[in-house]
């Protein structure tokens, strides 16, 4: 017999979820799979052109943004094709910021789904992180193929690093998004500030410029930021000649581990508050 004790000295357990005989991991897999399906179908139903329309929408925004950055010469040279340099920065950072921003709203947008007991607030954030990562990775791959065909040769020097750096951005986005979702639920006044965090991080992530061309004393504003490391590692994966003095995979992985542990700890200790009406 399952038991849940709601006394103050005991953590809230979970009653059976209506899926007897199915393991917890399997239940979560099904829930996330269903939420991803729902998220994608919702997006497809909201734009013209089906899945292609869903892909074109962020791609269009990224191209406009890159056109602007190229026009004001934000790139300042380098061995990597300018198109790829800006795509890498813009798409990886957009993956992160979109996951964070959409996670803040994830629970409110999916609140009614929590009536289906297997669905937990964290699942809505996982599903959104998967959708955004998948969508923007497709965009980056489309741009890589386009560049390869029409503009320049691409020497994908480390395809493993290419996908690891994208995964790192997804993990950062998921972790920060999960923390923000909890904080915004507990203290709704935090919501306005939360939306500004990704905007501020943009300047310290080397999205559209090489941070190390600035005076040495400015470097300290960038090297702490794991987002910068992930973006630089992604660029490095596309060209072996790409010079990046500080990018460190070990540091980026350690930050991801700390971020995900911290976010899960905060979520675990506040899940009851999230589920309380």
């Amino acid at each position: 017999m399952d038991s849940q004790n709601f006394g103050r000295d005991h953590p809230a357990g979970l009653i059976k979820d209506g899926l007897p005989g199915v393991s917890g991991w399997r239940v979560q897999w099904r829930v996330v799979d269903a939420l991803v399906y729902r998220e994608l179908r919702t997006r497809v139903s909201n734009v013209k052109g089906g899945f292609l329309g869903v892909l074109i929408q962020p791609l269009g925004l990224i191209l406009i943004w890159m056109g602007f950055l190229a026009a004001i010469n934000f790139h300042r040279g380098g061995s990597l094709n300018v198109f790829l340099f800006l795509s890498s920065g813009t798409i990886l950072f957009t993956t992160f910021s979109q996951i964070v921003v959409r996670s803040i709203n994830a629970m409110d947008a999916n609140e009614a789904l929590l009536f289906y007991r297997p669905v937990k607030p964290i699942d809505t954030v996982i599903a959104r992180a998967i959708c955004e990562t998948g969508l923007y990775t497709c965009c980056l791959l489309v741009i890589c193929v386009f560049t390869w065909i029409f503009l320049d040769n691409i020497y994908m020097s480390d395809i493993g690093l290419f996908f690891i750096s994208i995964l790192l951005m997804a993990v950062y986005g998921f972790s920060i998004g999960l923390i923000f979702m909890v904080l915004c639920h507990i203290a709704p006044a935090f919501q306005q500030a939360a939306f500004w965090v990704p905007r501020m991080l943009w300047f310290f992530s080397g999205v559209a410029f090489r941070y190390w061309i600035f005076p040495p004393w400015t470097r300290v504003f960038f090297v702490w930021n794991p987002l910068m490391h992930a973006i630089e590692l992604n660029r490095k994966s596309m060209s072996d000649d790409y010079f990046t003095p500080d990018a460190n995979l070990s540091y980026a992985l350690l930050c991801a581990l700390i971020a995900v542990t911290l976010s899960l700890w905060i979520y675990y200790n506040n899940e009851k508050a999230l589920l309380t009406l």
Partner: protein
Amino acid sequence: MKMIKVRGLTKTYTYNGKKATILNNIDFDIFSGESIAILGANGAGKSTLLRILGGTDVPDSGVIESDVSISWPVGLVGGFQGSLTGRENVTFVSRIYSPKHRIEERINYIEEFAELGVYFDRPFKTYSSGMRSRLAFGLSMAFDFDVYLIDEVTSAGDQRFREKSKQLLLDKRKRSDFLMVDHNLWGLKLHCDRAFLLDGGKIEIYDDLEEAVALHTERLLSKPMN
């Protein structure tokens, strides 16, 4: 055999700095094979109790022991996404509650029960309230649970749909148990064996459903409306 055991359950809500105790240290047992009518005036805590037992709300304190699968509130419409079609909406739930090889079977069952025709493949937001009720009720009945939480569902839809729902509920009742909240006392009498009467945060347990309904009606008539 005991299937749900509740001890010391307390639930309060705070609104504008004022604390209201909805359920105050209540105890009860529900046994396998019996269905319970939950009675009480508006705001007595009937739906709150169903939500807590359904795991979608959390009490302040207390212990709940359960060894059964419990449904979501039957007929829930809030979980549907307006821009998705009926088929897509039920596919979402089926993906959670069904193994992969049975998803299609569930969807077909719901499509057949809801009788929406071409509307099954049209956005949910275009449905009339009757169509929404049919889809929501069909979805709830497509999955097998040990206990169904039924909150005011027998009054949904038109006459023909209510008759169809009644038959389906009678059929389900042979294999599952119900926890029912309904202002339609006739529906409660049809499906339930015992009653819990909620009043002032406390619970009164009646083995005689008729007696509970009579007392509930008497109290409702003697008290001013909330």
